[in-house]
């Protein structure tokens, strides 16, 4: 740390950069989306509109100097949805300065951090808040302000995080599609500092032979709220939690074995959550360059079912498949299904993607939720199935 500070202050010469850095760099993607909801909405007050159009922009500009040892990057995200489905929002995914030394790095600003190995759910991944307006499945994240110090060797890394500036979840407004029928009020926070609490996280990761392992700890405001009934609505309550996590992957030829496990205290009684499973790859399908991957994962979440809206991963089985054609357009197909053990709640998602020319990508997504006797998020959104077509142009 002392050396890090000294370098920042210019007392030590910057070390030579390992990366082949270019100085200015700009890139971005413009997207146009057409969404069609296949069913009439279930809840009173919901709009009966079936077609929605929206536009997105994701850009990244960076400047590197000192031969790439220093970098400033800014990556804004914009979603404009003029048809009143409540998805319009803007976010800074990245806005940081990063210094890279020999075996260490320092990041100051807003950035994204991913922890984990699994596909259906990543219980250990806790640094960034979910961008629920983009994906209720949590695959898109909001930028998180941070101070990050990383130390790394040939096969290990330690990262320490100071995380000020908590980001609460943004929910679609009542009446919009994919919105909760019960109004969700402004968030409340437990703990003396409220939203202003500064969170801390630490992660150690290592690779040895076929193993990739991560151990993590987090102390601060939970990214997942507990939705507490209050009056006619729900209030998201963000508790102060302590969480320890383990993620591991064992890569044995074309089999990938995956495990993520956490234990969390501070949000009701202490509970554990586990995601475990495998991915099996088949290569050169049909004598060509096609690849097929089959995935299976189980999800367990032991949290108190005060209101099971908080998670629909309590006891679930995930089955998935991914097929890449290996063609000039990089065509891929993906399908994943999540089955709840205690109810008949199901989530099915199918995706396809193809590149046209150098800059255009066409994406298809279908998301189908079904439940007749469930008491969870899936049951609330069971009439919110949609098909979506996105045309993206990258530059």
């Amino acid at each position, binding site marked *: 740390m002392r050396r890090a500070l000294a370098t920042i202050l210019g007392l030590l010469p910057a070390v*030579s950069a*390992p*990366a*082949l850095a*270019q100085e200015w*760099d700009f*890139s971005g*993607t413009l997207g146009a989306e057409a969404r069609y909801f296949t069913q009439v909405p279930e809840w009173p007050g919901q709009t009966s509109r079936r077609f929605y159009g929206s536009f997105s922009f*994701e850009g990244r500009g*960076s400047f590197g100097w000192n031969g*790439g040892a220093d*970098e400033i990057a800014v990556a804004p995200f914009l979603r404009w949805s003029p048809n009143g489905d409540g998805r319009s929002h803007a976010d800074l995914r990245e806005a940081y300065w*990063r210094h*890279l030394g*020999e*075996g260490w*790095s320092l990041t100051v600003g807003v*950035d*994204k*951090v*991913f922890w984990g*190995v699994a596909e259906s759910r990543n219980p250990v991944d806790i640094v960034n808040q979910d961008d629920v307006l983009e994906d209720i499945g949590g*695959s898109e994240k909001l930028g998180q302000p941070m101070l990050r110090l*990383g130390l*790394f*060797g*040939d*096969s*290990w*890394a330690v990262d320490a995080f100071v995380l000020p500036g908590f980001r609460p979840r943004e929910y679609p407004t009542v009446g919009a599609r994919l919105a909760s029928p019960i109004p969700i009020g402004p968030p409340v926070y437990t703990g003396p500092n409220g939203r202003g609490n500064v969170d801390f996280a630490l992660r150690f*990761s290592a*690779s040895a032979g076929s193993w*990739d392992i991560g151990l993590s700890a987090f102390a601060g405001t939970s990214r997942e709220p507990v939705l507490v009934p209050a009056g006619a609505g729900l209030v998201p309550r963000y508790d102060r939690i302590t969480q320890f996590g383990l993620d591991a*992957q064992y*890569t044995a*030829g*074309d*089999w*990938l074995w995956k495990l993520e496990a956490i234990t969390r205290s501070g949000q009701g009684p202490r509970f554990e959550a586990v995601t475990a499973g495998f*991915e099996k*790859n088949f*290569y*050169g399908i049909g004598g*060509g*360059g*096609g*690849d097929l991957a089959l995935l299976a994962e189980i999800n367990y979440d032991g949290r108190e079912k005060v209101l099971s809206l908080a998670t629909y991963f309590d006891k679930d089985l995930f089955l998935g498949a991914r097929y890449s054609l*290996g*063609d*000039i*357009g*990089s065509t891929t197909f993906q399908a994943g299904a999540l089955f709840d053990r205690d109810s008949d709640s199901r989530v099915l998602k199918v995706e396809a993607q193809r*590149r046209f*020319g*150098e*800059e255009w*990508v066409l994406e298809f997504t279908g998301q189908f939720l079904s439940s007749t006797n469930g008491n969870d998020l899936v049951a609330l959104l069971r009439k919110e199935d949609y098909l979506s077509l996105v045309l*993206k142009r*990258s*530059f």
Partner: protein
Amino acid sequence: MKRILLVLFGFVIPGLVAVAPVRASAQDAAARGLEIAREADRRDSGWKDARVSLTMILQDRKGNTRERKLRMMMLEVPGETGGDKSIAIFDSPPDLKGTVLLTHAKVGADDDQWLFLPSLKRVKRISSSNKTGAFFGSEFTYEDIAAPEVGKFTYRYLGKEPCAGQTCYKVERKPKYRNSGYSAIVSWFDTAQYRPQRMDYYDRKGRLLKVLTLSGYRKYGRLWRAQVLTMKNLKTGRTTILKYGPWKFGTGLSAADFSKANLRNIR
């Protein structure tokens, strides 16, 4: 010392360390083939580390083309037990920009490979037992670009032939490992410098599947590098051309630069 991404290097036949000069013996074709492979490898070791930019041009049967731009960094790990390390950074097409593939080659085992996905900031350990899959939609399979050590093949010397305006040794090699897409690969090395000039890939049924030609050799110190590699698939009619920029050797890269933890820092 096992080399990785050999085709991307411009050299194709792998081997172990130094050997006696090639003797003029037609009696033991297997031993002779092995010697040629080893000599080609000996002439290409000791490069320490390297950086190069390249353009990958994918061409379909109708002549439609797609371009991909990559930068590569490589680290030679000396000794017979150490596998080399490499990083491939994608600059285009724009939706792949910032994607990084890190490979730690392993002697006598599957390589370790990680992929960095910039939109998610996710580092994924991926399976490297993929031998016959296409490398990013090209006519090169992972097997072609991640050539294994000399012990994984049996060799047969097939004689001298004119090739590329020179005289070449013609050597056949057959994979001993499982899951190969090929029954045999026939290579032509020029007799003056032991540089591969052409390779014919035969499918598992023994039919000629692909032809690779290496051209525009340029000398860097004592090392030779082909500037253009053309892989033509006779079955699909598709062609992949790799065009290399200038190579830089001994640029001071270290093992930490090729660590999984450093993947997110690579630009």
